């Protein structure tokens, strides 16, 4: 089982109504969008981080790892917003590189901080939802609303399929690895392409089996979720 998924099912907030958790997430994102205050965004981020680690009881190190993933992008974005290049030195702090000046203005710093803090707040809201609420319970909640059932069915099937694919991909990768298929980068590329091809073949084969099994169980085109 994927770690994120496992936490979603076993954390201390797992049994809380998914509607509440989704509202917290949506509310936090809305708040961070409306406020132009990077201090408030920081507060939102911190409170949700504490909610994840203290209230939901999710291990601190694991949380850190999950947050680390988008941090790279945030950092790149921050640098992109904050730094400017100009032939004239309009900056508060700058470095000269040849005919150009690269620097930071008070304004660009502000914008950078707002963007990063807003993203961080929104991220913490999404991660809060992902770690405390299983996709299963979310879909069951959303089922009752007037959203096209087809979309939800696709979501449910995709969710189930992810684990099947990951399991298959991992098994194939291991088998390739021990036969030296990933010993260097070129071999690894070839092995990955073989893996993808093999996955595709397996998917088609599984699909055929799945159709047979569904028909045996009187599938009539609807995935019912019950009440």
């Amino acid at each position, binding site marked *: 089982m994927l*770690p994120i998924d*496992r936490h979603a099912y076993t954390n201390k907030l797992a049994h809380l109504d998914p509607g509440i958790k989704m509202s917290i997430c949506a509310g936090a994102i809305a708040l961070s969008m409306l406020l132009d205050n990077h201090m408030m965004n920081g507060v939102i981020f911190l409170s949700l981080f504490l909610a994840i680690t203290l209230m939901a009881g999710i291990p601190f190190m694991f949380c850190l790892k999950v947050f680390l993933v988008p941090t790279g992008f945030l950092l790149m974005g921050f640098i992109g917003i904050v730094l400017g290049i100009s032939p004239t030195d309009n900056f508060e702090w700058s470095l000269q590189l040849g005919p150009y000046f690269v620097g930071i203005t008070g304004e660009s710093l502000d914008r950078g901080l707002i963007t990063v803090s807003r993203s961080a707040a929104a991220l913490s809201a999404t991660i809060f939802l992902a770690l405390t609420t299983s996709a299963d319970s979310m879909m069951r909640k959303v089922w009752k609303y007037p959203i096209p059932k087809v979309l939800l069915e696709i979501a449910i099937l995709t969710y189930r399929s992810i684990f099947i694919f990951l399991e*298959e991909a991992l*098994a*194939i990768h*291991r*088998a*390739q*690895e*021990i*036969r*030296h*298929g990933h*010993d260097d980068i070129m*071999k690894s590329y070839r*092995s990955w392409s*073989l*893996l993808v*091809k*093999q996955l595709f*073949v*397996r998917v088609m084969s599984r699909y055929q089996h799945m159709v047979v099994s569904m028909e045996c169980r009187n599938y009539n085109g609807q995935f019912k979720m019950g009440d």
Partner: protein
Amino acid sequence: MIKVEGLVYIYEDGTRALNGIDMDLSKGSTIGLIGANGSGKSTLLLTLMGVLKPTKGVITLGGLELKTNKESLREHRKIVNMVFQDPDRQIFYSRVFDDVAFGPRNLDMPEGDVRRRVEGSLNLVRMSEHMERPVHFLSYGQKKRVAIAGVLSMDPQVIIMDEPSSGLDPEMRESLKGIIDLLSKEKTVLVSSHDMDFIYEVCDYVYVLGNGSIIGEGAPERVFLDRGLLTRAKLDMPWLARLHLDLGLPLWKNSGQVSKKGMEVSE
């Protein structure tokens, strides 16, 4: 040879899959590993292959400790390799020849050597006439043999087989026993299986795994007659052992001996 000392493996979620395992694979030429589902067999095999890094403990090959850096693993897997249970998860090419050649080609061998090895391995598993065929035309048993050939082509000294007899028809099962017998003359084969009868007939040393620990080991004649041990391991007794213990018949090693006796009796 391969030795395992104090092997402990704890999964990310805290499950203690292996609880201090000691093994010596020089104790036999065909070694059996038996245990109930969840006893830690798969975890043990994956640590032996270097796919999983043990939490504690040491695996040594010829006295040298197995380290988890790329170079060590590469060398290790030239000597020790594994055939997984599901052939579809370890056959990647469309043509039999290409798949069996995967290992040797990854070792950058010249094409001539690769061809020799592929032909030799396919010959050993009696799949030579399918060398040029597409894999999806093969039956399950044939695919299993191709998977074995794919590992044999790397000429490892130790071959691990995970549930090799599962899903095989009786004829293929017999054929597999022959293959393992042939291989064990020059190599060490480690067979992990639920098929008690198969292990009993094919192996000359058996390790019994229960709840992540080795709860028994020894010659099959000893291990498989130990009712208490088998019950604790949540396993069954092979039929030939039962005939001996429950009906007082002689302890025969394989079904061939039984047939022979049967013919003598009817004369």
